[in-house]
């Protein structure tokens, strides 16, 4: 543990942020009168507000710390999470999937499963999602307390309870509206708070080329060393990146995870909802400047014995997550340290607020109203949303304490993501694009897909099978095994869903209008000039995406 003394100015910046988000929650409460306001922010956000919130819901501090640390560990291959592992899926959501989500006026992703298939598929996904969000929220809280304790010497319990209570206060007052407002504030704080880390790293070395020159080639390329897993830091082939990350994990997360998709649902009309992920894609492509560049700077510094820079160790294990905080302490003077800490705090708290607001929506609509109180009034659902927020916060704190006593919890988190999202993507893809997929096929495909993912995780963890069987390669890493496990779970769900659908009763085509492509009139761009169409901006995004991949090939 290292302890950094904060100055008066650092404390003032942190205090300003806390006062600001509480005040914002109180201000927004007067505009939160109905359940539509609370759960979907009144469906009146512009494409920019929905788009930045869409991106920020994913840009938590856990991601910033983890990805900077992962870059130190795996090299530039981590940029795949931001480019091939995000951009195609975000654009696919905006252009092809959003019309079905948004036009069906659902409150949640499980709500679509109810309309397209049946109640049991909705409840299955609703419960899995609720458990996942609570776990992620708790891990987020745990990670925040750990960082504050390790670097600032703050009391573990106090920092966790104070930030959890703050999130609980402003989310219970105005629901998704305040979650979205604080996410956008977090977006600006993260850019202003962390931009200088990469910039100063580049200045210290005298240019980006100088940083890259100090790093092994296997850590400084994107695709050129992906033919043989032994040649790159992540120990994976291009096939694992494309199939596991670029296809299943990326599309599973960006197109079906309600935490991010809920932000687009809050848009004021279909065009704004479709533009939200397209706008977000441009900013997503820029995030590597913050995290990948910082990770590479840390790697270059660590390879120079005269730099005085070394990552922390916990019981002999290198703490990769310490890279970003150590760079902040290296470069930031008084005041800016407060801004850097506030950026991380905002990321943690907005991440928790995002999880809790998604949890209260899925609980209220997809579990409580679906199973327990079908005739609930608008006022009752609003009350339930506020109560669920408080309960969700308390359960998150409980999960955080559980995580504290469980050293390998991050491994299990990876399993939970591929358990919920990877098979669900197969179900959604088939449900939206193939009319003859049946309710029984979807339900059992999802069950068996989730079980497959869970079994493969246990099988690798407890050495029942060799991980090279999953990755189809002699060389492998934990990350490669994660990617390939997601691929196999998705494939099993896809094949089982198709197989059972061939022999079970299909819905009438008339019942699927508005829910399935091919049966639904798609005239949403009729009369709109091509320069205002989401597809036009998506095409520009694709061009930038391709250029970036070529540039760092």
């Amino acid at each position: 543990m290292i302890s950094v003394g904060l100055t008066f100015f650092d404390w003032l910046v942190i205090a300003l942020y806390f006062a600001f988000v509480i005040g914002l929650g109180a201000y927004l409460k007067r505009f939160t009168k109905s359940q539509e306001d609370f759960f979907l922010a009144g469906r009146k956000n512009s494409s920019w507000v929905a788009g930045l919130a869409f991106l920020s819901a994913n840009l938590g501090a856990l991601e910033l710390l983890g990805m900077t640390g992962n870059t130190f560990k795996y090299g530039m291959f981590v940029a795949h999470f931001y480019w091939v592992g995000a951009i195609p899926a975000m654009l696919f959501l905006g252009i092809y999937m959003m019309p079905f989500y948004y036009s069906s006026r659902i409150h949640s992703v499980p709500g679509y499963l109810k309309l397209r298939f049946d109640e049991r598929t909705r409840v299955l996904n609703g419960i899995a999602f609720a458990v996942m969000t609570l776990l992620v929220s708790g891990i987020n809280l745990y990670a925040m307390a750990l960082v504050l304790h390790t670097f600032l010497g703050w009391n573990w319990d106090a920092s966790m309870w104070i930030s959890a209570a703050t999130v609980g206060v402003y989310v219970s007052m105005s629901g998704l509206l305040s979650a979205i407002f604080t996410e956008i504030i977090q977006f600006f704080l993260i850019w202003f708070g962390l931009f200088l880390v990469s910039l100063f790293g580049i200045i210290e070395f005298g240019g980006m080329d100088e940083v890259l020159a100090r790093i092994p080639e296997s850590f400084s390329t994107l695709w050129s060393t992906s033919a043989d897993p032994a040649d790159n830091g992540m120990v994976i082939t291009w096939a694992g990146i494309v199939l596991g990350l670029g296809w299943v994990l990326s599309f599973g997360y960006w197109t079906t995870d309600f935490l991010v998709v809920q932000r687009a649902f809050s848009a004021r009309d279909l065009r704004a909802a479709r533009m939200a992920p397209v706008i977000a894609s441009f900013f997503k492509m820029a995030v590597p400047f913050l995290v990948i560049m910082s990770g590479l700077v840390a790697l270059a510094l660590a390879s120079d014995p005269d730099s005085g820079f070394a990552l922390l160790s916990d019981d002999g294990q290198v703490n990769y997550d310490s890279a970003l905080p150590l760079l902040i302490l290296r470069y930031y003077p008084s005041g800016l340290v407060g801004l850097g800490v506030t950026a991380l705090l905002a990321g943690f708290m907005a991440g928790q607020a995002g999880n809790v607001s998604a949890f209260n929506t899925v609980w209220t609509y997809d579990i409580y109203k679906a199973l327990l109180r079908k005739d609930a009034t608008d006022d009752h659902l609003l009350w339930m949303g506020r109560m669920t927020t408080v309960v969700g916060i308390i359960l998150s704190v409980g999960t955080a304490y559980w995580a504290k006593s469980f050293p390998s919890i991050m491994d299990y988190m990876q399993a939970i993501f591929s358990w919920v999202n990877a098979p669900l993507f197969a179900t959604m893809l088939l449900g939206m694009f193939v009319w003859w997929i049946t309710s029984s096929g979807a339900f059992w495909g999802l069950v068996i897909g989730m079980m497959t993912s869970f079994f493969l995780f246990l099988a690798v963890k407890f050495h029942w099978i060799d991980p090279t069987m999953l990755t189809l390669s002699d060389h492998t890493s934990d990350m490669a095994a994660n990617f390939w496990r997601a691929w196999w779970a998705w494939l099993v769900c896809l094949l089982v869903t198709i197989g059972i659908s061939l022999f079970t009763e299909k819905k009438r085509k008339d019942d699927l209008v508005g829910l399935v492509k091919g049966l639904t009139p798609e005239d949403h761009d009729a009369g709109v000039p091509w320069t205002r169409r989401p597809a036009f901006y998506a095409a520009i995004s694709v061009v930038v995406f391709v250029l970036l991949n070529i540039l760092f090939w």
Partner: protein
Amino acid sequence: MKPIWYFVGLLLLSIGTVITVSGVVELLDPPPRSTILAHLHPSIWWGALMILSGVVFLLVNRRKRVG
């Protein structure tokens, strides 16, 4: 309801002011332990940039209402 951009402006202006003042204080009374590249006085110019951004957001959105 005021747009979110108004509040973004308010926060950037507030925090930018604190950071700029801290930079000026450090310039007048340097701390015993300085950071790498401290001679660039990042708090002053980065704080000023935040103030400028905050003012722009506030001015553009001061009369706007949404919802």
